[in-house]
């Protein structure tokens, strides 16, 4: 399946992927409204996180693992692995906010929703051909491709 792969060699730590992610997952789809209204009022937050360590940085998000630890840990059935699409899917309705998945994820790619007892996780931008983070990356540090992983 196609996944988003980060390249830490050329990630410049600008965080534009986070801006694009947040906007793509907003109701308004407008970067200014998303940041100025939805972010604070509704706790809108990106599923992407840029991690820095000195000059090194990399943009992390859900790896959509072949055998996802989060799915195994999920107590409510909110996280499931779609064997057809390969995606690790999240159903907010079912989520009970136990954070088991946060503990289980080996990549730290799941975050708590800042307001609700829910999580925030990459959905590979359902409805978009190319995830917003990949499209926005100014240095080609994020690629969306099939490397034979399921």
């Amino acid at each position: 399946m196609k996944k988003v792969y980060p390249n830490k060699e050329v990630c410049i730590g600008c965080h534009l992927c986070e801006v694009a992610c947040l906007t793509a997952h907003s109701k308004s789809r407008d970067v200014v409204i998303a940041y100025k209204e939805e972010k604070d009022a509704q706790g809108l937050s990106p599923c992407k996180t840029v991690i820095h360590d000195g000059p090194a940085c990399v943009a992390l998000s859900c790896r959509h693992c072949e055998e996802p630890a989060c799915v195994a840990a999920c107590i409510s059935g909110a996280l499931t692995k779609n064997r057809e699409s390969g995606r690790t899917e999240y159903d907010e309705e079912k989520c009970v906010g136990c954070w088991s998945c946060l503990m289980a994820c080996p990549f730290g790619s799941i975050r708590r929703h800042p307001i609700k007892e829910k999580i925030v996780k990459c959905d590979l931008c359902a409805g978009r051909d190319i995830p917003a983070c990949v499209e926005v990356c100014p240095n080609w540090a994020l690629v969306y491709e099939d490397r034979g992983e399921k």
Partner: protein
Amino acid sequence: MIHLAFTPIGKKYHDFQVVRDKDACINCQVCVRQCSYGVHTWDENRKCVVHDSSKCIGCHRCEAMCPTDALLIQEKASDFKANACWRPEFIKYIYKQAETGGVLLTGMGSPVNLPVYWDRLLLDASQVTNPSIDPLREPMELTTFIGSKPDALRFEKTPTGEKLVTKIGPQMRINSPIMFSAMSFGSINFNLHIAMARAATELGIFYNTGEGGLHPSLYKYGANTIVQVASGRFGVHRDYLNAGGGIEIKIGQGAKPGIGGHLPGEKITAKVSETRMVPLGSDAISPAPHHDIYSIEDLLQLIFALKEASEYRVPVGVKIAAVHNVAAIASGIVRAGADYVAIDGMRGGTGAAPGMIRDNVGIPIELALAAVDQRLRDEGIRGHASVIAAGGIRCSADVVKAIALGADAVYIGTAALLAVGCTLCARCYTGKCPWGIATNDPSLAKRQNPDKAAKQMTNLIRAWSHEIEEMLGGMGLNSIESLRGNRDKLRAVGLSQTERDILGVKHAGA
């Protein structure tokens, strides 16, 4: 915005002003992370991003990266009292030097308002009496050979037909008459060297290592590499000389004729140290002259030493800055055995040069090129060496005009850097290039992704080559060879008789 009361008075006369559209700014801090000069900061008290315009160097990186178009970088509107003699730059130079006592450094090519002769030259096109050619439908030849050509070809009859007996010297074959100019590893970073090497290889042209040596990992691109030997002799050894498809002796540089170079020790990282063969962290000083060249005869010795070292397999050229007696100097260089002469005009770029030198020394490439071509022709030695024009080639029309004035090919340096984002802020000497070009700081250097940079450079040369084909076709020419030194394809507008005589070009209408 902050700490302004503590800013020295001289720094308040800064060049740029940051304008932030508060309605559009989302405080995402992309500008904070991108600015390597500390202009934008997060203000914990105000809970918003603020800026200090006095630190802005006008590179436009923040403006380019801002996701909401909230930033505008403009020249500071405040003007000194109008004075045609004491223009603001001179006033600011004096304030700065009164404070520091130092030489004013700068980077890139001279921005001074001198005539750009390219703009005063116009190209011809075919109408009625000779047909123009459509390059999309008919073959168009841009292939160029850089190297010494024989005065005549001799053939001998053999049972299988005529056979060429004249020995033709080594040549650099290029698919388009454009090459990447010498920019050393150190002055620009390794990512861009990888990009230039890959782009040159894909395009079938050459890039020039500059004086910083060649890292062994780039030897595989050697067939498209010119290895440079400059006064500091950094990274010069037998394998290096035999790694490339051409060797260039650098005598001078258009941005700083008569001046050496100084790569500060802070820029000598492990990789630069290894490549240049200088100790880690020590300054790399390029002397102003080659200490073994004090005459044309000395130059001849070095040319042939390099030819011997490379077993006469590759052309050996000489690069000089365009200075007053450039034609006579070029004649001497050709007679000394150089296979090509590269002439770098006064608008050529640099990683660091004293501003006074950059803006006041040397002559424009158009005049130098025309003078050199004419002199070599008059002396009957034009064919003994190729001529490469450099310094201020801005577009494909400039390339075409340069070739019509007598160049075999051109070098582009500034244009290649513009292709990867450079905005000519001219602060290359600080090592803090926010575009990740003139810096070896790992967190900045990685702003140049070699894959992306190679693609951008390749695109640029491809685009220019298409345009050159269009212009050639319009003139009824199907080969770049037919344009070389063909000054009848040029006409001047608004130039004096003296200028036209030097350029060897008639006035428009004549």
